[in-house]
């Protein structure tokens, strides 16, 4: 299925408002999906026998810049039967307050592969995933402060009385 056909399929199933934006400038076109529907869209893309995106290649958390204050997740899907690929995105404005982290619905129930990727996004970017079964830090120690891949990240001065440089 081509990119256009997938787009039409999603609109027919979920309505016009599910696709917030369409990015077709680069080599790989992407669909920006409304964050609330991402889980349902992924289920549909995985189980529909015309698309069969049964493989999650990559899931990346993004901080789009210290000025924009936009956080996002990019999903790279692959279909093993059709040898097809698709990029989905979700984005959200967040004011970087520490009381509440930016949060997106999890896709771990669609692909188990997302579990560790989402933990990584939480660990390094401070993005929460609602209903994630095991959301803890994965690469950094549990008592690490801050999220290193954020654009406004400042390294903590001491970690367990060890100077950090």
């Amino acid at each position, binding site marked *: 299925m081509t990119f256009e056909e997938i787009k039409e399929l999603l609109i027919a199933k979920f309505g016009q408002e599910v696709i917030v934006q369409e990015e077709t*400038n*680069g*080599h*790989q076109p*992407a669909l920006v999906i409304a964050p609330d529907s991402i889980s349902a869209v992924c289920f549909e893309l995985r189980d529909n026998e015309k698309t069969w995106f*049964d*493989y*999650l*290649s*990559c899931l*990346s958390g*993004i*901080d789009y*810049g210290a000025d924009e204050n936009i956080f996002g997740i*990019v999903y*790279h899907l692959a279909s*093993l039967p059709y*040898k097809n690929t698709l*990029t989905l995105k979700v984005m959200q404005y967040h004011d970087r307050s520490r009381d509440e982290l930016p949060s997106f619905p999890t896709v771990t129930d669609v*692909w*188990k*592969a997302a*579990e*560790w990727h989402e933990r990584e996004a939480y660990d*390094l970017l401070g993005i929460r995933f609602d209903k994630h*079964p*095991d*959301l*803890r*830090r*994965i*690469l*950094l*120690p549990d008592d690490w402060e801050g999220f*290193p*891949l954020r654009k406004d990240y400042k390294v903590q001065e001491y970690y367990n009385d060890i100077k950090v440089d």
Partner: protein
Amino acid sequence: MESTRYQKLISHIEPTEMILNMGPQHPSTHGVLRLELITDGEIVKEVIPHVGYLHRCFEKHAENLNYQQTIPFVDRLDYLASMNSSHAWVMGVEKMMGIDGDIPKRIEYIRVLVCELNRIGSHLIALGTYGIDIGAFTPFLWCFRDREHIMNMLEWASGSRMLYNYIWVGGLFYDLPVGFEERCKEFIAYFKPKMNELNELLTGNQIFISRTANVGILPLQTAVNYGCSGPMLRGSGLKWDLRRVDEYSVYPELEFEIPVGKGEMGTTGDCWDRFKVRTDEIKESVHIISQCLERLQTDLKRTTDFDPRAKLPKKIIPKAQDFYVRAENPRGELGFYFITDGKTEIPKRVKARAPSFCNLSVISEISRGVLIADMVAIIGSVDIVLGELDR
């Protein structure tokens, strides 16, 4: 905050069960990996992997250096297959720059040649150390003896034994040294019978089969759902090789088979199948290398005026876009996701999708209810490299 699955597991432990930490210094975890095992006697009830001991935030490094400067860091991701990693990185940057069509054929063939040599070296480590995990010492020494030839050749070409920085954006560090092709041919002639010896000694050995067949069975559905790739996915019986699927570089011009697990000794997707896929892949790599050498010695022969740095871009500033590149590494799908702003030489965001990372995430699924000794067999068959797992 609701409790995580980990907290629930640890707090609901039975009086008869015991928590056993395997690693981070355990030799069969192949690096600094810690597995927290909840055991009932000899039976493993649950496995909780703890990773990150080798974390140095590659992605943060990549956000502060330009594309060429990041290649040495890319080499240090999967330090057993540096050529393959830098090949993936370089392909992504070239595609974003739109110069992927201008790379001379000779350069592409040299890239594939060194990548496949590196793939053999990487698989030899996987096979040799797997033997040692199971208790077979000799194959380990044999594998390292043969790998040494590859290391020496790649050192001759690049100046470094393991971390090469040889494949550059738009070209190569240097052309192959004079006499490399002949030396490589000698190696292939030497190496072919050695693989048969290894198969006779280890792959078909009854003790080895008893330890690995029907152990750690990974059903195809689970492998796909957990994002497993490389020999893990192929061991479960699916013909999925990105060299064929994406047809990148000059792989479409080369002839090779994709070995898959068939459950010859037990069930499809068991540890033995994954091991067998790796041994078969070495044979295919040898076949690819012979074809590359054939071309490099005939129509793509070295000429005095050939400059592997001729196409190197002066400044690498790709236009604003995001791009995901993937390539078949010895361990599976290595992916890089770039976001560029079109103004600077430094990417805005780079995410590395490491094959070992996804392959290891399935470990708790496939090792519920196994014996502790089988745990060693399973973790070895996943063939992780902590350098890329922890990034």
